[in-house]
């Protein structure tokens, strides 16, 4: 809580030399301060319990041998050395994670933007289409995933049925190491309606006058999109990109339900590996210290990517009226 003190102290000193009736206003000030802190207390507690405490303890535990039952034993960099040099699954898992992120994030950003542009029109029935495109987002992830698990079933599944109908070659889908990851991403694309709605709100917040002025100047549709829509949407696109990357790096449910990380290590995302190292093998081989080290690697990757993106974006996007 030491972070809380300096501004309080500084403020009290400033108030000191001011003339006037000292006691009452100052007491009222303290009352207001107290009220303020009471109001934000849940947020402070949340930060301390859900962010600060885990960050500090897990950093420590990542340098220990720890099974959760007996006290953790300091073993320096052993976890990290093992991870980078000996663990046969770590590099494939990191590779699978990178592949997944690079596949799913651009795909859903582009698909979401195209879909938003499509439904940003005043034609009759547009609301119905928006609702239909959004519908899969409402459904619970586990329900969606097990539905798709059956869709991808090679013999009875809908996917091969459709391919067959179109006279296209069928696939083993989740059973094929090359197809499994794109198949997972297709399920994500089915739920792109969420991104669509966010981008649609962004498109509709662009002032209409800008387009009118540009049209008077004879700017074509593509030019208007590149010169007006994209820059005005800049902050929204960047925020969405950051949040989606954040989520993609921590994807767990998709592969836990669809593929169990297979075939082989094809879809063994880092998050799924962390779960297996830390929880699934809990009885036989508890390795919480090691799993925590993996968490920190993933954590640092996400924070670096986020920081770089936010830094780069503040330089290149249009800064509207600050919120």
């Amino acid at each position: 809580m030491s972070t809380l003190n300096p501004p309080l102290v500084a403020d009290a000193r400033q108030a000191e030399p001011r003339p006037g009736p000292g006691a009452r206003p100052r007491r009222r000030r303290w009352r207001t301060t107290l009220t303020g802190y009471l109001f934000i207390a849940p947020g402070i507690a949340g930060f301390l319990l859900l962010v600060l405490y885990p960050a500090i303890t897990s950093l420590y535990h990542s340098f220990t041998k720890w099974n959760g039952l007996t006290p953790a034993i300091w073993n320096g960099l052993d976890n990290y050395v093992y991870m980078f040099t000996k663990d046969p699954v770590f590099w494939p898992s990191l590779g699978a994670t990178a592949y997944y992120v690079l596949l799913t994030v651009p795909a859903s950003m582009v698909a979401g933007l195209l879909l938003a542009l499509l439904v940003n029109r005043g034609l009759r029935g547009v609301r119905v289409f928006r609702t239909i495109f959004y519908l899969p987002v409402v459904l619970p992830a586990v329900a969606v995933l097990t539905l798709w698990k059956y869709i991808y079933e090679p013999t009875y599944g809908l996917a091969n049925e459709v391919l067959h109908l179109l006279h296209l070659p069928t696939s083993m889908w989740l059973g094929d190491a090359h197809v499994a990851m794109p198949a997972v991403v297709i399920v994500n694309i089915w739920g792109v309606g969420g991104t669509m709605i966010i981008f649609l709100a962004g498109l509709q917040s662009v002032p209409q006058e800008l387009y009118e002025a540009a049209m008077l100047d004879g700017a074509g549709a593509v030019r208007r999109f590149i010169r007006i829509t994209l820059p005005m949407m800049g902050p929204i696109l960047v925020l969405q990109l950051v949040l989606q990357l954040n989520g993609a790096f921590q994807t767990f449910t998709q592969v836990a339900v669809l593929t169990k990380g297979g075939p082989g290590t094809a879809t063994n995302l880092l998050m799924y590996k962390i779960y297996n190292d830390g929880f699934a093998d809990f009885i036989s081989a508890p390795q919480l210290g090691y799993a925590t080290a993996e968490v920190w690697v993933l954590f640092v990757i996400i924070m670096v990517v986020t920081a770089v993106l936010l830094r780069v974006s503040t330089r290149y996007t249009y800064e509207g009226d600050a919120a």
Partner: protein
Amino acid sequence: MSAIVARPRPLSSQVPLALSRVAWYALCVLLAISMLLPLVWMVSISLKSNGDIQQLPPSFFPKEFDWQNYVIGPAKINFFRLLLNTAIVTLLSTIGSVVSSMIVAYGLSRISFPGRKLWFGIIAFSIFVPPVIGLIPLQQLYINLGLIDTFVPLILPAFLASPIFVYLARQYFLSIPRYIDESAMLDGASHWRIFTRIMVPLTRPAWITIAILAFQFSWNDYLNPLIYLQSSDNFTLAIGMASFIGDHAGDSAYNYYMATNLLYMLPPLALFFLAQRYFMEGLGALGTTGK
């Protein structure tokens, strides 16, 4: 924030998609069909008899409707017990999310006190902190407190004001004119009174949006229940549904599974059709708060 109310624009030239009316409808209908196809197929499977789902080549529609699947399927995973668990967790989490984030957002936007900017910065920063960091430390903490296999780890965090909800609510509070609380202040109203009597009714769209997002998160959550719940009587539906296929192996269970799956989807679907406006506009508002 004005973007919370997404106004439909008149047919305008702002979109550079040079699609004719006919092409636009054709494309939309095609996309809509492919979006809906998996759901229609699911309903069809859920009605097929045991013999029917083994048939090769598979037929798209069931030969006869086997409504029994909607009884046998749910019984296999103790559906109604899990439904009750999920409802308890979701209801309490939703209440917690709304109450805590609204209170914190009020404090951060309507009360001026030293340190406010700092704490807002910390909370806004927390939006970007990946939750994976809490995975192992929090599970250990709850084990040590004897709270594992209870609903507490699933509900407690909701009462601690999720940063993204605080941000959303704060944006909404900032759009309310200052003079409203100032005049109430002059009349001697306390902050708590202003919050409950004036602000809560004025910010209805904000907390309905938060409630819907919190409901969705809680109802859909898989990883947290998986880590914190152990006995099958305490499972939520997400866990029960995921274990369905593992426990009852063989393709013959899929008609039961799809029937149960449909029941699991019904509450969020019903809520969506009741409060569609808030679902879609709320998400839009959340996405544009970065502006």
